[in-house]
């Protein structure tokens, strides 16, 4: 249609559509093959980037003892508050400790707390939620009520309240996170199971007389796992943020253990904040990057697990 082309203001979209049409007419296009979910995930550049950053940070934290030249706890009063240099990549803090080494070693604790809490909360939430959603009953109603009570608090306030009661330690923190975090995954699993329960294959399995536990955990749960995985990913990010905030406030992991939040704690001092940026800026950026990468991965997982989005 040369006449048409000359007339209408042609956009870039038109050019793109022309190319598709020509390819279609030449019979070059065919149906895409392979796993759609995988294809979508791989096609999502941001999730891939997130995966790369995530792996890099996790690996360097795991390999910290082999990467770092300095002991993260070693106090060296001869080199205090040194700015970043070849000897000390991220500089040194008030006690002359190497910040790069502290960031890598701190990552181990921070990631452990975040991932451990997310997995712990998920384990409880899934265990209770899938059976509760499938069978119901008074126990389920009680747990539902309990989760409502927990979720009525702003999370950080509940966490701080519990910290004030049980005291500060890494394991206490994980326990508190699990106690305050299981509710959301429990409710989500429960809701998924409630809808799966109505599907015909479940009715069929029941008619066969299979034990409830088998139906629930072996046959139904796998079909609810997609959104649960996304939730675990995102709650890992949330717990890491919370650990950082608590430790920054001096109420999380005890200060003598290096974690990302504890390193940032030094920035409570306006003097440090204004003059010694290397003490807090790099570690804050690492936390941000890590959480960002986890969130991108979670987003990618969600998109690829969601069949309602075409592509």
């Amino acid at each position, binding site marked *: 249609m040369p006449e048409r082309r000359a007339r209408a203001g042609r956009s870039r979209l038109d050019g793109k559509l022309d190319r598709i049409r020509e390819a279609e007419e030449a019979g070059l296009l065919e149906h895409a093959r392979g796993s759609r979910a995988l294809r979508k995930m791989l096609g999502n550049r*941001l999730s891939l980037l997130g995966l790369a950053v995530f792996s890099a940070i996790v690996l360097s934290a795991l390999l910290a003892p082999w990467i770092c030249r300095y002991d993260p706890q070693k106090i060296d009063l001869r080199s205090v508050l040194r700015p970043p240099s070849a000897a000390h990549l991220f500089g040194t803090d008030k006690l002359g400790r190497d910040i790069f080494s502290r960031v890598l070693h701190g990552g181990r604790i921070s990631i452990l707390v975040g991932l451990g809490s997310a997995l712990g909360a998920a384990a409880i939430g899934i265990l209770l939620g899938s059976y509760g959603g499938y069978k119901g009953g008074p126990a389920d109603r009680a747990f539902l*009520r309990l989760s*409502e*009570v927990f979720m*009525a*608090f*702003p*999370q*950080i*306030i*509940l966490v*701080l*309240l519990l*910290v*004030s*009661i049980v005291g500060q330690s890494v394991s206490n923190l994980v326990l508190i996170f699990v106690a305050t975090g299981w509710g959301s995954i429990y409710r989500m699993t429960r809701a998924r199971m409630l809808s799966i329960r109505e599907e015909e294959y479940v009715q069929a399995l029941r008619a066969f007389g299979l034990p409830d536990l088998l139906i629930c955990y072996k046959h139904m749960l796998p079909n609810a796992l997609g959104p649960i995985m996304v939730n675990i990913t995102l709650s890992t*990010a949330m717990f890491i*943020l919370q650990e*950082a*905030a608590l430790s*920054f*406030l*001096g*109420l999380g992991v005890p200060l003598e253990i290096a974690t990302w939040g504890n390193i*940032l704690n030094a*920035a409570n001092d*306006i003097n440090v*904040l*204004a003059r010694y*940026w290397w003490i*807090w*800026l790099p570690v*804050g950026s690492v*936390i*941000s990057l890590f*959480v*960002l990468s*986890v*969130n*991108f991965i979670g*987003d990618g997982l969600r998109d690829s697990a969601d069949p309602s989005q075409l592509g």
Partner: protein
Amino acid sequence: MIAYTLRRFLALAPMMLLMTFLVFLGLELTPGDAVSFIAGPEAMANMDGSQLAALRESLGLDDPFLARYFRWLGGVLRGDFGYSLTSGVPIARIVAERLPATLELSAAALLVSTLLGSALGLASALNRGKALDQALTVAGMIGVSVPEFFFGLVSILVFSIELKWLPVGGRTRPEYLGLWDRLPHLVLPALVLGVSMTAGVMRYARASMLDALGKDFMRTARSKGLPEARVDLVHGFRAALAPIAVLIGFRLPMLIGGSVVIEQIFQWPGVGSEFLAAVRGQNYPLVMTIALLSVLAVLAASFLVDLATAALDPRVKLS
């Protein structure tokens, strides 16, 4: 409407009762002599052991647990929360002094994040797939990922210390009086507190708007010959509003929680920084009271969200 409010209040009552019970249980189980936060510190200082025992007796501290609970609950309902363990000041007075600052900060952050978040989400959805949308999507992800306090630290360094545009912290200076004078103090904390909520609202507003854009009624609106801007805003955005209001309601607890950290960073004299001090000092009566109030705030917020949703979506019935 009034009937609904009443019904809703009655429905919340058991929940609140349970909360107060848990809080009282917490108070009982935590260390610290109950006498000290019922009688007030001055009275305590002038007493010896036998007087103390007599006081315990007269205050009913040796009564059965449930009796003590109901007496405490009666006090709470009259606004008597007992005394702070560290300063001896009635808790009600501490909270009353500090609540306005927190409300001011939260309201400002809520206002900013609601308006900015919806507007950016709308712009993002209307430019789906274009550079603006992609930039906003990445920015939104950064907004929900960067820890609020880190964002606060960076903004203090940039805007207060380096550029000297805004004060480092605090709510006011002695010579200032009006809100207008205080505004420079409010800007940074409110923006920082609102940042992650803005990002959250934006992401959700975008999704909700995209959903609305795909609806059949948009085509109907076009079939009437309405201008595109009217189709997008009057039909699309209006229909997308109710879900956005729901999200804002869900996020409010996070805003309330976030204010604890932000008040600390900006030395904002609100309930949040008092809460932190109480947690540090294991000042349990104060910790519990503030936690109870935060629950009340969350429940009130969810009630407001229900009202807003009903106002925005005629299909929703208040019942």
